[in-house]
């Protein structure tokens, strides 16, 4: 009886909240808001809020073309793997200090690694499609991963150290739940002076990790014909689009966990709404505004930007935290 309940609870977590269904709805909503906001900033009416959902549904109904030279199995399974790993990540993100579906001693490292899997899935899918455009695209995608991964690591370490100094006797924590706990007790991370550069760095990292507009070097539709996705059509393409939206939600959500964690009430529903509002704000700041304002960067510009300015911001924060500020 007990075991059945546990399994049911797990299935609920995986399939409904905060796993599959919730993440999906939130991600589609977020993507719709993003597109609408971009349109409004350009003084357009913009697509309806449900446009991402329409796009996905339409793609479900399209024919699937598998190029003759492609490795069929890798071509079809890569999108599913990428999406699956994102959904697992969604289980690891706490909603408040008390509510987290799956908690671990060191889930920060797991999140970091799970977030690289979608990029790897895109790359393997692109590689298996045997298109030269996809080849160029995957090379660029990997450069982008190399570019943002270093500052992202430092930001995560900084947050872990900041929370660990107070909450853990070893001076370092790797648990997102502890980070939330810290913020619940001592106020959100963003209110700490030493964490502001790290938060800024994270705001720069999110669009690149998502592959949003100024950093979408891998999918540059005008130069390399959608790059990594050049050969995809129909359902697998829908999976990639979905993974793109979900990634947007997961990363903004991660930002909320890391820097805006203190503002919780303890009531799950209120926390949820708060989280969604924060996600929209973060999305607006780091995805919508650059999208509306910037033109696409060149590949080496992206790399240089992340390994100088963003890295510098993250390092400043780490140093300040290490000095105990």
């Amino acid at each position: 009886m007990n075991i059945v309940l546990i399994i049911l609870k797990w299935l609920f977590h995986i399939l409904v909240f905060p796993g599959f269904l919730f993440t999906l709805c939130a991600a589609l909503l977020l993507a719709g808001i993003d597109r609408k906001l971009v349109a409004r900033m350009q003084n357009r009416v913009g697509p309806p809020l449900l446009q991402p959902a329409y796009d996905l549904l339409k793609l479900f109904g399209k024919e699937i073309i598998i190029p003759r030279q492609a490795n069929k199995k890798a071509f079809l399974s890569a999108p599913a793997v990428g999406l699956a790993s994102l959904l697992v990540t969604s289980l690891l993100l706490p909603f408040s200090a008390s509510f987290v579906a799956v908690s671990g001693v060191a889930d920060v490292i797991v999140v970091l690694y799970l977030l690289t899997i979608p990029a790897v899935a895109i790359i393997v899918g692109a590689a298996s499609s045997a298109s030269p455009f996809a080849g160029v695209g995957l090379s660029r995608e990997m450069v982008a991963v190399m570019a943002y991964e270093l500052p992202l690591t430092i930001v995560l370490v900084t947050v872990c150290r900041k929370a660990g100094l107070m909450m853990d006797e070893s001076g370092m924590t790797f648990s997102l739940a502890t980070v939330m706990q810290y913020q619940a007790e001592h106020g959100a991370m963003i209110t700490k002076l030493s964490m502001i550069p790290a938060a800024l760095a994270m705001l720069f990292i999110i669009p690149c990790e998502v592959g949003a507009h100024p950093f979408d070097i891998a999918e540059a539709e005008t130069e390399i014909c959608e790059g990594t996705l050049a050969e995809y059509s129909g359902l697998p393409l829908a999976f990639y689009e979905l993974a793109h939206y979900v990634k947007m939600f997961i990363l903004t959500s991660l930002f909320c966990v890391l820097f805006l964690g203190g503002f919780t009430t303890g009531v799950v529903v209120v926390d949820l709404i708060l989280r969604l509002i924060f996600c929209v704000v973060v999305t607006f700041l780091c995805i919508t505004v650059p999208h509306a304002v910037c033109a696409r960067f060149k590949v080496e510009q992206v790399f240089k930007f992340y390994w100088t300015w963003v890295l510098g911001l993250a390092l400043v924060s780490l140093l300040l935290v290490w000095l105990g500020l």
Partner: protein
Amino acid sequence: MLRKLIDESAAKSPWIYHINAGSCNGCDIELVSVLTPRYDAERCGFKLTGSPRHADIVVVSGPITVQTRDRVVRTLSQVPEPKVVVALGSCPRSGNVFKGSYSIDGPLDKYCHVDVSVAGCTPKPEAIIAGLAKAAEILKEKRKEMH
């Protein structure tokens, strides 16, 4: 239920792939202006894609020159079903002022079924939007026929 939803959304999210088959660039500029803030075709879900594999609507502009003929046909064949072909401007439907030239091998409907033809040299953006909306309807019909 799901099938109906998919059919409905086929009309709401038509992605465009644009082929220039020897056009003078007039139509191309007008097509781009359709997507600018002034006309904002994105409010109906139109989006310009970079790969024919993603496209629903293929917009062909220009008289089909000998050089581009094979490439147009090849690219059209690489678009997944259901797909709609839109001939943009007078050139692809008749050859326009280029008609009779040694380098013209048009019109477009020699090579594929043209679903919508937007006449004009160049057509006004309003006309293009009307044509694209028509194409989206046809897309929905084609999607319904697929099952």
